[in-house]
């Protein structure tokens, strides 16, 4: 079987999904189930003081026993904040050390700050975390993050939440060609064909949230994404035919045409 291996653990699904922006936990759960994802990202936030502790939580809807949680550092603009957040996440999730590092550069674009990302990655890897790292599509930075010891590099396809699709397949291709750890396209996927293209390029997996959560029918889109990732992976493994702009090669026999 064609499995995704991250930090020594195998996963049947190559689609990773976020759990934000849904109407409620029930919709979140149904979308995650329809996506077939096994790894789900979660955010770490201050608890709402004064809230009834018996209120349902994300952990009830999507039990960590059933899914691999990938706590993220969304909203962090410095290495220090990202490191603190993930140390809290590790404590919260009983020592769980697979994490998604993202250090953002500015609130308008949410573009990654790669300088802070590199700094945070160094500290976290030394501290024993298995770091899946969100980064720009710069092949040199991606390689440096791998060399630091990140277990997966996750370049953006386009800006977080933009749904703009894969804007620079050439850079992604270079990152994939150079990488010795899994490459996960993270951010920017808007619809199923984007996910397929990412997989056809040779990405090991795709991570998305908004494309599913903000579709008119998130559950249906989640299942579309599952199929899209499957299709793209299969096409990648099958090896596409070469592109030929102008070499006529009919699919039907050239002999035996009537009237000749």
């Amino acid at each position, binding site marked *: 079987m064609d499995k995704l291996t991250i930090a020594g653990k195998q996963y049947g699904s190559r689609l990773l999904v*976020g759990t*934000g922006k849904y109407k409620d936990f029930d919709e979140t759960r149904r979308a995650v189930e329809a996506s077939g994802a096994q790894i789900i990202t979660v955010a770490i936030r201050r608890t709402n003081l004064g809230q009834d502790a018996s209120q349902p939580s994300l952990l009830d809807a999507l039990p960590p026993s059933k899914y691999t949680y990938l706590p993220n550092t969304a909203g962090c603009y410095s290495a220090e904040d990202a490191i603190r957040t993930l140390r809290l996440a590790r404590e919260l*999730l009983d020592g769980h050390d697979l994490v998604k590092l993202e250090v953002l550069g500015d609130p308008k674009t949410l573009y990654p700050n790669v300088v802070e990302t590199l700094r945070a990655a160094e500290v976290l890897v030394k501290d024993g975390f298995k770091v899946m790292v969100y980064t720009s599509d710069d092949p040199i930075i991606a390689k440096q993050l791998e060399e630091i010891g990140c277990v997966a590099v996750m370049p953006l396809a386009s800006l977080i939440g933009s749904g703009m699709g894969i804007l620079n397949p050439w850079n992604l291709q270079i990152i994939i060609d150079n990488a010795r750890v899994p490459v996960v396209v993270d951010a920017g996927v808007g619809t199923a064909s984007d996910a397929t293209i990412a997989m056809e390029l040779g990405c090991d997996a795709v991570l998305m949230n908004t494309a599913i959560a903000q579709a008119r029918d998130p559950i249906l889109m989640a299942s579309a994404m599952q199929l899209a990732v499957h299709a793209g992976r299969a096409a990648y493994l099958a090896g596409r035919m070469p592109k030929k702009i102008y070499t006529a090669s009919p699919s039907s026999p050239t002999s035996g045409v009537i009237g000749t």
Partner: protein
Amino acid sequence: MIELTINGAARQVPMPLNVMQLLEHMQLTGKRVAIERNGEIVPRSQYLSVELVHGDQLEIVVAVGGG
């Protein structure tokens, strides 16, 4: 009374207390949280032994939906 800063807001609590007592005071027992005190993680195993003092800065976090 002592004053603590919890999740960025000043809060008066009746007595010096340990972390477990604070969680009870705030009705957070039974909820899965993680706690940082003055920049350091407080492991769950130390909730009974860590005494909070006036001026402590605490962060109490949970997992929420996110991408």
